[in-house]
């Protein structure tokens, strides 16, 4: 008996000695203007990480979290630190398109598999083999918005975009292309700058043009005040944005009653769980954080699940000795993900583009201060 215990103990000691920690970097905006998005994302990542951190051979995955502050310099520094000092096998992030574009070159140079879970600008994955996306692109998101407008006979529109954000410029273009193709007429494109608080100039023009539809691919802090000033001026046309304004809490806080009726395209609705895993995720998320998971939490979880799935396939004794081979294997596995059960649905990555295939979008609407599901749009 004693012998048996000793044997068991030594086996345990041996296995813990052998078991390694594999580091995965998380680069998200945890402070700064869009900190709310980053925090929600991290909640989602932490939840799936607490469940899926053990690999079949006993190794564990450790997250190294770095705050990029929604700032290009912090993003690049943080990325370099994760890659060179922390020796991570993969990075999840950054969240915003302009930040993801800032690390694109370093991802290629250092051959680091990088999963941006929610950067939607098409250019993010173009011309590199090392950035993989877990969400749909703005080309699709813009098309969804254009189709929605045209299906509801809203055939002339004004587009208001943020000149300083790659996301906003790209999404505005995608919308206009699809909208014109479908027979819609763009009356005018107006621009704003990140941090603007006075939109009366833009509102005055919109009032004069009297469009049937207003498309605003900007971020929530500007959208909140824009809506307030737009409705105060008496403009009643429906307003729609992209996932950048998918922060109903902030919109209600900044716009008050003017937030009612605004629509946006989003990645996920907690009321419509597409997979078994997402139903579980939503239940556990509600239990842990006392609220329903947002699209940020869901895509954050998806990004981690993609990496976990790839690391699981690549964690062999041979790979664990050579970091660069390990990374190459993870990248290859990421790019060849097939039908992975995740939170926003089943993920299949196109190995050539790094974008997921057939990722649907949901359209949401704020009604009486509450978010309401409008429809699910498949590509």
């Amino acid at each position: 008996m004693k012998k048996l215990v000793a044997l068991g103990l030594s086996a345990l000691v041996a296995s813990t000695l052998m078991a390694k920690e594999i580091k995965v970097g998380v680069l998200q905006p945890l402070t700064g203007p869009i900190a709310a998005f980053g925090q929600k994302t991290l909640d989602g990542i932490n939840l799936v990480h607490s469940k899926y951190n053990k690999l079949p051979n006993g190794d564990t995955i450790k997250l190294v979290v770095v705050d990029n502050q929604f700032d290009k310099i912090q993003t690049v520094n943080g990325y370099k630190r994760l890659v060179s000092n922390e020796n991570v096998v993969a990075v999840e992030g950054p969240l915003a398109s302009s930040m993801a574009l800032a690390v694109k070159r370093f991802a290629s140079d250092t051959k680091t598999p990088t999963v941006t879970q929610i950067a939607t600008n098409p250019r993010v994955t173009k011309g590199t083999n090392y950035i993989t996306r877990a969400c749909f692109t703005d080309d699709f998101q813009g098309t969804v918005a254009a189709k929605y407008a045209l299906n509801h006979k809203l055939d002339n529109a004004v587009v208001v975009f943020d000149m300083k954000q790659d996301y906003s410029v790209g999404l505005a273009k995608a919308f206009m292309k699809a909208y014109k193709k479908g027979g819609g007429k763009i009356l005018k494109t107006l621009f704003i700058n990140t941090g603007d608080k006075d939109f009366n100039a833009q509102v005055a023009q919109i009032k004069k043009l009297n469009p049937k539809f207003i498309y605003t691919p900007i971020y929530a802090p500007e959208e909140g005040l824009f809506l307030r000033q737009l409705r105060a001026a008496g403009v009643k046309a429906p307003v729609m944005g992209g996932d950048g304004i998918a922060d109903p809490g902030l919109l209600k806080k900044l716009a008050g009653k003017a937030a009612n009726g605004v629509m946006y395209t989003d990645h996920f609705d907690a009321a419509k769980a597409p997979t078994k895993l997402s139903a579980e995720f939503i239940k556990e998320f509600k239990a842990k954080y006392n609220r329903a998971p947002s699209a940020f939490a869901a895509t954050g979880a998806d990004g981690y699940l993609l990496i976990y799935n790839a690391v699981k396939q690549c964690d062999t004794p041979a790979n664990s000795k050579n970091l660069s081979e390990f990374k190459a294997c993870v990248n290859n596995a990421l790019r060849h993900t097939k039908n992975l059960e995740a939170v926003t649905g089943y993920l299949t990555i196109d190995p050539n583009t790094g974008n997921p295939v057939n990722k649907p979008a949901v359209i949401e609407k704020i009604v009486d201060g509450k978010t309401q599901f409008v429809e699910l749009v498949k590509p």
Partner: protein
Amino acid sequence: MDVGFVLQQIINGFSLGSMYALIAIGYTLVYGVLRLINFAHGDIMMVGAFMTFIALGVLTGWNFSHISMPVFFTAVGISILITAFVGILTYVSAYKPLLDKGAPKISLLITAIGISFFLESLFNVIANQYLGGTYQAFYFPKWFSTIIHIGPLTIPVLTIIVPILTLILLLGVLYILYKTKVGIAIRALAFDIYTVKLMGANSNFIIGFVFALGSALAAIGGIAYAMAYPSIDPYMGMLVGLKAFAAAVVGGIGSVTGAVIGGFILGFVEVAVPGFLPELGGWKDAFAFILLIFVLLFKPTGIMGIDFERQRF
């Protein structure tokens, strides 16, 4: 283009200009005394707005649905006091040690930028940790948004109050500078800091007073700005501070009246460009600064251009 529309734009310009003016006075006072461009001054305005928000929250138990006038003005009073104190604190903790060591002005400038980043980051942490997010909606009694109809004009009460308040405060500052003992001391200090020290005057007290006065005015400007555009965030002071600084320069830095005139000009341009040339609305900031360059081309020392060898403020 009817008369009503033009009048409306003029009133809006006055209102926005007043907010810049209130902040610009602080730049000009500190520059006059220390020859220091206090780049943290824009963030002091943000502190004023945030402190009002926090004080209101504490006083109402974070229920902003109904705010009575006495509660609001108590919060504003608390905020002005705290902001003035923060202004003094920046002087005592950051600028004074450098001045005592005879550091060159450029070191002070860098310190000012450092303080600016420090305040932004500090309030970012406070907002995210305790207030639930970087962006906050700013609440105030509904009376301020009451709309008055005068002929064709529709004017919110706030738009009229702010310029009047600014002019009263300007007179107050001029009174302090020219009719009180502290004011004489401030002007003397601005002439020759070393001689004033030799004469036995408490220069630290006087400079501290200047910082407190400038910060209190910035707080009022910040609160007015937050009421006009009811969303506050830790970075709101950056661009507004820069514009107020430009207003101070165009008015003639070192001149209090000039700061107010500069503020009004900037406010007018910013309202007039989108008002009369809506096509160019998105470029309003660019236009405001182009005008500043023009003014400076013809009057390099600013409109009220001060000859520092002869006069102060």
